[in-house]
């Protein structure tokens, strides 16, 4: 075992920082390091926090981390690793990583480790190396790893594959109930946090989310009526005559994402948000979803590694001049890119 791996497993902070740099820069030892860390991963609960720019993700992560560090009557204090991703400039390749500004309350705590990551051209809301950085923090023994994504709009859904529990942060005033049923980011939520809940329109935002969830389970409680969103009192859940669910049904019942109102700057609603995150973890374990998600994640990860490795191998054995010629022919419409790819990949017999 390399010194670096041993030091990461012992929780040495400088080693953790260096290991993350190593996987970020995809250095020669990155694969070997990750391979050695792999058996020691899988213990941490990985929580994703995503939402639009300026919705208060960093402030929420700060408040959540403080809460988890302290623990409460029901929960043990937990150590927390944080990965905060900000966008890389498509023009200069540089980045301003500013999430630490909102996390200054966490300074000086040995049970916290914060690392900022630039997205480096990846478009799904994370950096290529985020999942590997999660592994480093997991292997280093952090109980909880919180991943804050790039400010995300509608389609940045990579976090759902990287996290066990995804918190989608919304704020009042962002859109109507049609926004809420569009595909994408709202679909990946395991928990909703409606932050800045002291702003006007918070009830409407909560209701729009609730309506979206109700459409999903066909128990409509909120309806659009003459262009106004109204709550209908007698929803299916509230009907006195509705048959109570059997115990088995309850055990296998799908998870309905709770909606928690928060004011992160005043730390309001944080207890409830933390409880919802832990309840989701418990649900994953009890329902067998955790094992299924781990397997799906392993499949996605293996696929990505194979893709990257195949690309690397093909490029490594291809003469740059030959590649240039192929590109030129594709650009001239002399050759199609599919045939070119087949040619580069070679027949199955070639090494």
């Amino acid at each position, binding site marked *: 075992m390399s010194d670096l791996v041993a030091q990461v497993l012992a929780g040495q902070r400088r080693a953790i920082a260096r290991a993350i740099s190593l996987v970020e820069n995809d250095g020669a030892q990155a694969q070997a390091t990750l391979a050695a860390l792999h058996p020691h991963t899988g213990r941490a609960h990985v929580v994703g926090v995503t939402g639009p720019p300026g919705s208060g993700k960093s402030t929420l992560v700060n408040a959540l981390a403080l809460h988890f560090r302290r623990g409460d009557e029901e929960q043990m204090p937990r150590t927390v690793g944080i990965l905060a991703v900000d966008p890389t400039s498509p023009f200069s390749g*540089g980045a301003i990583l*500013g999430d*630490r*500004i909102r996390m*200054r309350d966490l300074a*000086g705590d040995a049970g916290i480790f914060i690392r900022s990551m630039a997205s480096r051209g990846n478009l799904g809301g994370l950096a290529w*190396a985020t999942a590997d950085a999660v592994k480093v923090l997991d292997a280093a023994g952090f109980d909880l790893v919180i991943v804050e994504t790039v400010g995300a709009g509608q389609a940045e859904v990579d976090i759902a594959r990287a996290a066990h529990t995804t918190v989608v942060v919304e704020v009042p005033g962002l859109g109507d109930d049609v926004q809420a049923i569009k595909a994408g980011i709202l679909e990946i939520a395991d928990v909703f946090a409606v932050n800045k809940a002291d702003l006007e329109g918070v009830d409407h935002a909560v209701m729009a989310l609730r309506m979206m969830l109700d459409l999903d389970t066909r128990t409509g409680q909120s309806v659009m009526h003459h262009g106004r969103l109204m709550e209908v009192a007698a929803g299916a859940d509230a009907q006195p005559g509705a048959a109570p669910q059997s115990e088995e049904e309850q055990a296998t019942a799908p998870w309905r994402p709770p909606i928690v109102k928060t004011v992160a700057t005043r730390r309001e609603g944080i207890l409830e948000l933390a409880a919802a995150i832990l309840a989701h973890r418990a649900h994953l374990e009890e329902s067998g979803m955790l094992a299924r998600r781990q397997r799906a994640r392993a499949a996605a990860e293996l696929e990505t590694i194979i893709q990257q490795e195949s690309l690397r191998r093909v490029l490594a054995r291809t003469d740059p001049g030959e590649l240039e010629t192929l590109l030129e022919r594709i650009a001239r419409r002399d050759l199609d890119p599919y045939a070119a790819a087949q040619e580069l990949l070679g027949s199955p017999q070639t090494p």
Partner: protein
Amino acid sequence: MTDKKIRVLVAKPGLDGHDRGAKVIARALRDAGMEVVYTGIRQTPEMIAEAALQEDVDVIGMSILSGAHMALFPKVMELLRENGMDDVLVVAGGIIPDEDVPTLNEMGIEGIFGPGTPTETIVGFIRENVS
């Protein structure tokens, strides 16, 4: 896909809240292709050293206008040494009188850039001196 980027921590130690200069520098370094961890105002030396360690930066840039540099900079340098981070390039800016420069240089603060320094000078200095 993954090149080694220069990572810079930009921090404002001390109690003055004027961070426009620090933001201008952060932006210039970003435009020069560097990854800038911006930590904001009122950072203690402990916070700066801790952030530099966790972020595994190559460079620390500190800006100070309050006059407390001779108290705060040595503390940062001491903490960096304790953490085994002597290899990090440390540069400073803000209001730093000429007579303090030799002492700071001796301490290991290699680049000191006062008001009016073109940002290209700072970018160039970092590119040349980062280990």
